[in-house]
């Protein structure tokens, strides 16, 4: 195995594109090194992106935030402006693993690992995050929900890397939240996850995005669930419609963490709770 730690995204792309064998990006390594240890993969090349300045910081821009691909979840949790603007995104990222894992794991890694149960992804999708993807033919920016195509699979081409994620500057009266259900309070994998962001106008929900995790092969954006909230003041009728829409959108599997029927039910329950938190954070009054 060859190890490279380039100083620029361009160099990283060239290394990955030129490699004839199997090439992997190393950010936090919390998935990659586990897969190497289990001999599920045997990389010929590992490209460490943590020495690339454009990937290692959180920038506050005019349009919002730009989170470098190598930024750890612990760094997100320490960024006051980001915590204030998108608390749901930061909470979701901070739910992943232990403090030891937090010190290394990245939300871009969580995205690219493409687990159906990835905690940060529903929150990112709900917040309208975009991925800045760089390849040999330049860069493209795509909504986060377009990155994961199936369990463990992404829409990235060979030689492409995600350099950063962008989050918009939240409009006034915006709130987001992420809730997951796990049997334990920490160090566990979501049975169901729900990310919701809401924007209010005169106390009424004007915009909404609802994304479910761990209930389908990929995290799923549910427009019908958003429509259930829009125009409401989050009354019981709207919340019941939200729960119904979320449960209807689920396409889960039975596994040791939960049955399909259970996940379908819990998705609705968690969505109601997440919507209530997002609504309060947006300054809404029930």
């Amino acid at each position: 195995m060859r190890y490279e730690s380039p100083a620029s995204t361009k160099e990283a792309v060239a290394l990955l594109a030129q490699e004839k064998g199997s090439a992997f990006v190393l950010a936090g390594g919390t998935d990659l090194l586990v897969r190497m240890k289990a001999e599920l993969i045997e990389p010929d090349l590992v490209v460490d992106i943590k020495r690339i300045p454009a990937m290692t910081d959180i920038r506050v821009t005019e349009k919002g935030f730009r989170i470098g691909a190598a930024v750890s979840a612990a760094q997100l949790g320490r960024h006051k402006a980001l915590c204030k603007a998108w608390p749901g995104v930061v909470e979701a990222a901070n739910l992943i693993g232990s403090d030891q894992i937090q010190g290394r794991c990245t939300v871009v890694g969580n995205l690219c690992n493409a687990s159906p149960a990835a905690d940060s992804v529903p929150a990112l999708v709900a917040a309208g995050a975009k991925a800045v993807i760089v390849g040999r033919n330049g860069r493209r920016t795509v909504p986060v929900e377009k990155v994961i195509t199936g369990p463990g699979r992404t829409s990235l081409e060979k030689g492409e890397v995600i350099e950063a994620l962008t989050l918009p500057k939240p409009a006034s009266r915006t709130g987001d939240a992420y809730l997951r259900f796990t049997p334990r309070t920490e160090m566990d994998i979501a049975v169901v996850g729900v990310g919701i962001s809401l924007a209010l106008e005169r106390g009424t929900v004007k915009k909404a995005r609802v994304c479910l995790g761990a209930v389908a092969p990929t995290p799923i954006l549910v427009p019908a669930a958003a429509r259930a909230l829009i125009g409401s003041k989050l009354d019981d009728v709207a919340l019941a419609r939200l729960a119904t829409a979320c449960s209807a959108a689920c396409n889960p599997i039975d596994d040791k963490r939960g049955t399909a029927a259970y996940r379908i039910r819990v998705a609705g329950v968690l969505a109601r709770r997440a919507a209530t938190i997002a609504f309060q954070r947006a300054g809404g009054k029930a």
Partner: protein
Amino acid sequence: MSNAVLVSTTINGDTVEFACPADEVLLDSLRDRVGLTGVKEGCGTGDCGACSVTLDGELVCSCLVLGVEADGRAIGTVEGLTENGDLHPLQQNFIDHAALQCGICTPGFLVAAKALLDRNPNPTETEIRYALAGNLCRCTGYDKIVRAVQASAKDLRKAKKR
């Protein structure tokens, strides 16, 4: 097997150089090349925390870091906790509270507990339990460990006031 790469790093404040294959994890480099056997391997997959060290001040599992990544960075291990041969309050309190039996998990608990107390000198019991959720102990049980950390926090706060 990969070709050896020369790594120049700082461990517990000392400059250290070692050569390791590119696919070797830092845990193995520390134990087998630098001789710092305080760091333990439990699971090797980031679940148990026995291999906890700090990397540029951040608590990490050294089984999930490549040795080559340490180049130019600063590592802290349990061997760095003593000062001039004196045990760190955490170490003394682990002994006094019988917070260890077989001892395999202890270095990881000490490094993780120190990382917690460095950023939060007065943690609640709940905060301690969450902060140590990434460290597994299979014999002592967690209560004695939590008590030892609470006592250490108190000792350290007192020492700071003096």
